[in-house]
Structure formats: C-alpha cells, structure tokens
C-alpha cells in the first residue's frame, strides 16, 4: 500500500507527461497553396501530386490530424494575408512574395525550396500596341501580378535594358484576368507564365521568354511554415516536409513527367505550352531538386537586395532571417534523398 502511495506522484507525473505529449500535436494542419485560372482547388507539380495522392492525409491519419487545404486565387499575396491572419500553417509561394512578406515582419520561415527550376516568364504583346522589341515596352500598359515572382523577373528584364517600372504603366493583374485584359486591349502586353492561348489564336504575339534567357527566369519558390507552428510542433513540421519531399522525388523521375504535365493541365494550363515549358527547362532531377543550397541562399539574398534597390521593399535584411534549416537536412537524410540530390 505504502509503495503504491509512494509511486503515485511518479505515476501522476508520467500521466501528465503523456497527456502533455498527447496535446503536442495539432488537430488540423492548415496548408495554403496558389489557385489557378480555372478556379479549381488543385495545384500542379510535386505538391499537386502529393495532394492528389492524399499523402499528407495518409501520413497523419494515424494521429487523427486532419489536413485542410486552401487554394488562394491571388497566389502568394493571398497566402501572406492568411499567414498574417493566422489562417494557415504551411504554404508554398514564389520567391518575391516571401521576401516581401518577411520584410514586413510576417512570422514564417522557408523550410524547403519547391524545386530549383523556378518558373519561366513570358511576355505576350498585343500586335496593335506597336511593341516590336523589349525597349518598345517603355510607356506601355503592361499587366502582371505585382508582388509575385513575375514582377521580380520583369523588373530584372527592364533593368537589363535600362528601364525601371516607372518607365512603363504597370497594371496589377492576376493570371486569371490577364488573358481577357490582353484580348480586350485593356493592356498592351502581359508578363505571364507559360499559358498563352491568345498567341495560339493569333490575337497576341510572344515577344520574349526566359527559356532563351534563363538568367531572367524565376528563382526557386519555397515551402514555408509559420514560426509558431515549427517551434511548437517540430516533429510534425519535419513529417510534413518529409511527405512533401517524397513528392519532389517522384516529380524528379523522368518517367513521371507525363503525369506532371497532365496534372498541370488540370489547373488550367494549355497542354502544348506546359509541355514546351517543361522541355525547355532543366532536367527533372535538377528542376525538382528542393535542396536549400548555399546558391539558393545567395539567390534569395540577391532578391532581397534587388527588392530594396527597386523600392519593392524598404527593409534590408539577412537571408538567414527567412530560412529555417533545422528540418530539411535531417528529412532528406532519413529518406535517403541526401544521396540522390548530392551537392558538393
């Protein structure tokens, strides 16, 4: 009896520990993603495949943790608003929107890139605009989604020909509005991703694309997590990342490229253009390499510096403020992918 009484505090402590550990997991993991021109709740690429296969749902089913996904039509800026409002825990967005969000104090960290490939950028023009070369863009109405990687790439292209955003009339257009705007002559040109149905119809012309000039293409986008979630649930964070990395591994295989393209078509792209964009890109293993390398960090620091110089953000900060490197290294190692994506 006395032994039992003596053991009671220990049992109670153990019980409390178990309870505390049981509470150390969320009821739901809220994941943000970019929307698409068809307004469908789908994303493409590696994360799109993870979503389709329900890998995250399977991973956390045993813990009773639900997965909630929200697809924001306004892409990165929509996810930034959601983070600011405490509506999502994870997300994936382009480089510039994350750089801008962090500059404004958003409490999130990048835990992986979303592939080293980055997105190609296409400049489509209305033939009636008289634009024949990049320099003709001066003074013209150009539609692009401000605050996204498209803006950053476009500003860099302008910079290379001695222009700035002040030399053009920038119109803030999300991708779903760009086609109609160009077709109705609301803008002279658009800066877009690979989709260009108006070029196919002869309504618009393709002036420039970064397949020929990869130095201007988008940098690697990223997967981010809120600091609060990562600090409160580090193990869950690593498991989410590991599941997503499985998607990047699958996407990096040559035999899965047709499936990747088919998945992208479901988000509203044109098959021909997505395929051409894919072919004109890096080999799959490189394109879907999610590793945060010193080159990636250097690239992001350059984006921060360029954004300050261009007036996109006001606060200059060190890239380490934006990245949390605690998770990816161990996750890659546990999956054996550190021997697949090898960086010297």
């Amino acid at each position, binding site marked *: 009896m006395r032994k039992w009484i003596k053991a009671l505090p220990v049992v109670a402590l153990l019980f409390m520990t178990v309870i505390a550990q049981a509470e150390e997991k969320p009821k739901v993991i809220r994941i943000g993603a970019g*929307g*698409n021109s*068809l*307004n*469908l*709740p*789908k994303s493409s690429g590696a994360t799109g495949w993870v979503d389709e296969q329900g890998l995250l749902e399977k991973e956390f089913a045993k813990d009773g943790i639900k997965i909630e996904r*929200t*697809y*924001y*039509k*306004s892409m*990165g*800026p*929509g*996810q*930034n*608003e*959601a983070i*600011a*409002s405490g*509506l999502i825990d994870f997300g994936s967005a382009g480089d510039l*929107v994350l750089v*801008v*969000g962090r*500059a*404004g*104090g*958003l409490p999130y960290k990048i835990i992986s890139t979303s592939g080293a490939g980055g997105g190609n950028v296409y400049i489509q023009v209305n033939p009636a605009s008289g634009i024949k070369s990049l320099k003709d863009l001066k003074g013209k*109405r150009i539609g692009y989604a*401000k*605050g996204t990687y498209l*803006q950053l790439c476009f500003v860099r292209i302008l910079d290379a020909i001695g222009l700035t955003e002040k030399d053009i*009339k*920038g*119109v*803030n257009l999300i991708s779903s509005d760009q*086609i*109609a705007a160009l*077709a*109705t*002559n*609301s*803008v002279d040109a658009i800066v877009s991703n690979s989709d260009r*149905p108006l070029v*196919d*119809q002869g309504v618009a012309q393709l002036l420039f694309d970064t397949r020929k000039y990869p130095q201007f293409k988008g940098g690697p986008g990223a997967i981010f997590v809120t600091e609060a979630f990562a600090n409160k649930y580090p193990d869950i964070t690593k498991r989410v990342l590991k599941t997503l990395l499985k998607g990047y591994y699958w996407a990096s295989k040559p035999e899965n490229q047709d499936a990747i393209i088919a998945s992208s078509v479901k988000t509203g792209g*044109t*098959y*021909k253009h997505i395929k051409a964009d894919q072919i004109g890109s890096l080999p799959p293993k490189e394109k879907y390499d999610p590793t945060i390398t010193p080159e990636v960090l250097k690239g992001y620091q350059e984006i921060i510096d360029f954004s300050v110089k261009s007036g*996109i953000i006001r606060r200059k900060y060190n890239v380490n403020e934006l990245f949390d490197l605690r998770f990816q290294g161990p996750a890659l190692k546990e999956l054996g992918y550190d021997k697949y994506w090898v960086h010297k």
Partner: protein
Amino acid sequence: MSRNKLAILVLGALLIGHANLQAAETPETEQPKEQGSVVPFGSEDLTTAENLDEGGAISQADLSGVRSELATLRDQLTQRLDKTIANSKRSLSISGSTQTRYAASTSPGKSGFLFNSAILSLKGFLKKDYEEGKSFSYTLGLGSNASYNLQPTDAYLQYSIGQSLDIGQPYLYVNIGQQKKQFGLEATTTEDKQPAINTAQFASKLGLSSRDIGIRLYGDLVPIVDLGYNYRIPLIEYSLGLYNGSGTNAPDTNRNKDIEGRIAINAPVGYYSPWRGLTLGSSFYRGQQDLLKGTTLITNGDGEAIKSRYGADLSYVSAPLGFTAEYVLGRDEKALTGTTLANSTKKITTSRGYTVTFFYEWGEQFYKNSRSQSRNDDWWPTTFQPFIRYDHWDPDTLLANNETAVTTVGFNFFFAETTKFQLNYSISDDKATPLKQNSFAAQFQFGF
C-alpha cells in the same frame, strides 16, 4: 464584346486547340485500341470502363466528329445569345439587395414581418479609357421607399479625372448627379464598419443618410502599397461636394447650394502592422434651408435659414477586431415668431449625436483573399460577428431631459457570399416622451 461572348470564343478555341493537340501528339506507330469490343455482362470493371472511355489514339474521323460537335455547340450558343441572353448597349453590371425583417417591440402594436427595402443597382462604363484609366461610368439605383414604391436612389455619372490603373499613384474622381453625401461613417460606410441593422439616430435626424443632387470631387493622396498582400491604403482621403440641399428626388427649393467636405487620415502602414485599419476623419456640411415656424414656411424664407453639421470620427477595423466612434453636431435655424422673413424672430438650435460600436468576428468574411478561393462548391467563409453599440441623440443641447439613448447588442451571421442573418436587441430610453422600450429585430439581408 461582352464577357460571355468572349468566354465562349475562348472556350471554343481552347477545345479546338486541345483536339488538334491530341491528334498531333499521337505517335504514328501507336495503333488505336479496339473499340466496341464486347464485354460479358457482369464482368465490367473500372479498367474496362476506363479503356472504353479513353478509346486509344484519335483518328481523323474522331477529329471530324469533335469539330462537328463544336460547330453544333457554337450554333446552340449563338442561338442562346440571340434569344435568351440579355444584352445592353454598353457594359452593364446588375446587382441588388433585399432586407426581410421581423421586428417586435415592448411598445403596443409594433411587431410583425417587414419587407424593409429592395434595391436594384445598374452600373457600367460609358467610355473605358485603356490608356490611363480615365473612364466614364454610370450608376443607376432603384429602391423601394416606405410606401413600397420604386424610386431612383443613386443616379450619377462618374469620371476618373486622374489615372486609375497604377495602384501606386493617387486617384481623383468626380461624381455628378444624385448620390450619397460623404459625411462621417454611420451614413456612408459599408457592412464591414456598420454591423447594426439601423444606423445611428443622428444620421437620419440630421439628414445625413439621405441622397442629394449635386457634384462631388473625391480622391486620395500618398497611397501606400504593400505588394506582399495586394494591399493599398492612401494616407489621405478627401471629398468635397456641392449639392442642392433639398434631398432625394427633389428639385432645388432655393438659390443657395450646400457644401460638404470630408478628410480622413489613414495609418500609413503595411498590411502586417497592428495599426492597419486605423482611420481618423472629420466632416462638415454647410448650407441653407427654408425658414420654418413649426412646419410652416415663413414668407420670403426660402433658403434663408442656416443648416450646418460638423463631425469627427475614429475607427479601427482590423479583423477580427472592430471599433468605430463618431460625434456629430448640428445647427439648424428656425423661426420662433413672425410670419415673414423681415418680422420673424429666429433661433439656432444645436443638436448633438454620438455613437460607439465594438465588434469581433470569427471567420474569414472580411479577409479579401479568403473570399476568393478556388473551390468546387459554393462554399463561403462562415463568419459570426457579435457587436454592441451605444447611440445617443440630443435634439437640443440647451434643453434638459430630451435625449434618446439606444443600446444595441447584436449578432450577425454571414453564411453565403451575399447573404447575412442579423439579430439585434435594442434598449432605448427616450427621456422626452418619456418612453423606455425594448425591441428585437431579426433580418435576412440578401443580395445578388
């Protein structure tokens, strides 16, 4: 070209392009799968169905079939466009809202269902400027009045004097016609700052919520743009208007014009700032009104009496929190004695009203990007919004015990894109009557 027609053309082009691509991408060596092979009944499985559905490579005959199908579809759509789809000479956007209410009160004989208002609004561009966004647009609204008759509400032209394409630059507009006066918050704000069913007492008592006919210049200065969120907030917003001063759907009753002005200072911060949504505003309205003794017009008193209103407001609306406060003074000249302007004795009455509102929200109704999600269904961010408001009105500051105070607690439930359900419980204390009463109102507000 209307948006519908454009969408149809783009859809058709995409379908043709897709069919061509399917044909072009087919390897020449690939043999079409056998079509129509007989599967014993009962032995179908998903694989069988899938194979039949995909049908292998597309032949020229298949392509001809698709083209024929598209041509039929095009003809059908053309017929629908001609016969069943409304058309307009210029761009047109139709919207509207209706309020259906049940109200009950502790006062005898005051309860029942009420069809409170119905508003139909037509908007569009008369001339769209693609160069700089200096466009002409129109607004025509029809609303039901207390007698359930439709009458014009908004009826004005709007012209963008300055550019309106670059969100980093200031905007400047002019409105001409019948429109709402831009005085303070209560009389003008939308539902994100106005959770109660009824506006504050001073808004109607001082004629601030009614429309008037005139011209209004308004715009903003020093816009702050936070690209990380597609967020734009100008440091200064201003409005200056010149009106008849005789109210809605009424010609001018005198030669004088009323002048209205408003300036608001917004916190010049990015989206992720605790100060976002903080606004300090000030408004004035000065004019002349007919000199009345009671309700009788004094001879030669047309437009000879002073009418002025001054107001200040403070708001902090940053979801999930909301707070608004407004203070208004009114000065109205009336005749105490006499029958003509020359022999009348005049007196200026000063009235005063103020209101304070707090509200809190659970849900994503007021997050712009959350409302525009990619969804398969007709989901909308369900949002709950409890609030409390105190509303005070003193019709004559020189007289004691004539104030009316109304305290309202309420709950708003947003459950669809254009629909909300509102519950308000009000405790009012009219010291002049004197009458204390409690009232309850439940209202559906739905729009399209």
